[in-house]
């Protein structure tokens, strides 16, 4: 459950003040699948940084599962990111020279989970994104789609309240992109995970269930998606969906 109440963000670049966000009000319920859309410069990256607790609002309130995040210090924020937020980035952001398994284990290392529990959880997460046979491959031995699956597995392992995906298909071809999106759809439908996409791509946004449009740091529109992804992705995603 996420609540943003008139959140603003002001950057000062020298003497000039840049208003990246000008009072955002937004509620995201548990189990939602939502896309934040907007052209570049609309403030969607800033919003994502704030939602992801990487950054703090200049004013306004941000409640994450009832906890007010705005007053927290850096280390408390790190703890919140660790337990409540999963990140998926456009460029995957995996550690090079580190196996898929070890990459997925990282959030659990900082959560203080024992080595044996980490191993089983990490391999389960990798299996759930279809990488059972790739546990010990390093990022440079994996395709883009596979790397993004590792990143998704990493975002899942600590059972976060919310997964934030920043242009998750931006570096992938259309077909692989659809596969990745269908993984998110499964996580949302089958495991009830709350997922937030940040994207400028209308096709990707159309696969979520609610779209929030941002322009110049303000919410300018909001719509429900009646039929996510139309037909083709839904059918390619899996047989059990949409029934």
């Amino acid at each position, binding site marked *: 459950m996420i609540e943003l109440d008139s959140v603003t963000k002001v950057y000062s670049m020298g003497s000039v003040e840049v208003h990246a966000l000008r009072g955002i009000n937004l509620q995201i319920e548990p189990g939602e699948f939502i896309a934040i859309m907007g052209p570049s410069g609309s403030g969607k990256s800033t919003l994502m940084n704030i939602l992801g607790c*990487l950054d703090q609002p200049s004013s306004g309130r941000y409640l994450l599962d009832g906890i007010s995040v705005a007053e927290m210090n850096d280390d408390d924020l*790190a703890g919140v*990111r660790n337990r409540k937020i999963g990140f998926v980035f456009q460029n995957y952001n995996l*550690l090079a020279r580190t196996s898929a398994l070890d990459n997925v284990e990282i959030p659990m290392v900082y959560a203080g989970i024992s080595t044996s529990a980490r191993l089983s959880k990490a391999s389960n997460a990798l299996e759930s994104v279809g990488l059972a046979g790739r546990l010990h491959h390093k990022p440079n031995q994996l395709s883009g789609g596979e790397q993004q699956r590792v990143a998704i597995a990493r975002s899942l392992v600590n059972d976060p309240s919310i997964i934030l995906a920043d242009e998750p298909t931006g570096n992938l071809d259309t077909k692989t992109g659809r596969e990745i999106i269908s993984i998110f759809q499964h996580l949302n439908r089958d495991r009830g995970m709350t997922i937030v996409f940040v994207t400028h791509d209308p096709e990707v946004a159309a696969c979520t269930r609610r779209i929030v449009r941002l322009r110049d740091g303000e919410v300018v529109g909001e719509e429900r998606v009646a039929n996510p992804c139309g037909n083709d992705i839904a059918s390619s995603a899996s047989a059990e969906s949409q029934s």
Partner: protein
Amino acid sequence: MNILESVRLAIRGLSANKLRSALTMLGIIIGVGAVVALLSIGQGAQAAITQQIQGIGSNLIFVFPGALTQGGMSFGAGSSATLTMEDAAAIANPLNCPDVYAVAPQQQRNAQIIYRSRNTNASVVGTVPQFSFVRTLEAADGRFFDEQDLNSSARVAVLGAQLAMDLFEGEDAIGQTIRINRVPFRVIGTLVEQGGGGPTDTSLYVPMTTAKSRLFGSTVARGGGTSVQLISVSAISEGRIDAAVQQITELLRQRHKIEYDDDDFSVTGQKDILGVLNQVTSILTLFLGAIAAISLLVGGIGIMNIMLVSVTERTREIGIRKAVGAKRRDIMVQFLIEAMVLSILGGVVGIAFGAGVAALVTATGVLNTQVSLQAVALAVTFSMAVGLFFGIYPATRAASLNPIQALRYE
């Protein structure tokens, strides 16, 4: 995140760049190696000097003519002729100096020594039979001269081990005749080798009486009497050395009619000499260690340099780790431990390297080096401290990176 995990992570991080890590460690290896090797050599030298000084006699006190300079000792023995045979006899009298056990005055001069066609230059020491006791000289072959030889001014000589070797080259020396400044002497004994390059092995000992009548002629002291260059005195026990020094000093002041502190002689215990020499070698060892420590410091700067490069290179990794929940402390500890692993590993290899150098020096036979636990502990502590000190700045820099900027870093 526990320490073991951090160490594992650090080793993985370092092994990703093996050559670089090895080169960085080399700085520490050389530094620690130099500290260990030089301290070992210094301590070996100190032990050798101690052994040598202790080897020249038991409960030994030296009485030199001429006043000593400040600070305990001077090597100006014989610089002025103020001590006499009569002084020596007075010291030997138990009524004057109850804590003195034996007294051996000596007079020495360099002379030409000839045996058949071989000749050499050696220090000829004229002394008394007590000399062999006071200076703990043992005869390897034959005997030291006795009272009878002294009283009869016998032309007999006792040879130091090295001198005997040089002159006779393994032949039996006893009973042979050598010439000292063309005066024939019969060899009656050779001494056990003392080692360490001391003067005893290369000297030749003759009765004082013979030396005066046949070799040197006698020198008249300032106050009258036959002068001697040095009086070696043995105290009755180690505990009475200080008392004996006091008694001798007072006696000689009386005999020389000295009222204030302007003594024309000096009395020095063996311990004082040892103390001064030990002080000198300690300072020297410390000095060498300090120079070696500077190279350790340079090694530490190398670590800092590489860690700073590493932090920059791995900005993105730091961003990822922070995004998934690493706290400031976690990042700090990760980089600090990497620096520590570098320095400790370098320290361990450096100790082995230093011990190897020390062993090599021992093997050459110049010196018996001693790798002390102290030196090793010092090196380990110092290298750890270097790792910690030079690791803190890069680690702090890594820990304080902003995760958003770190994630965007290309």
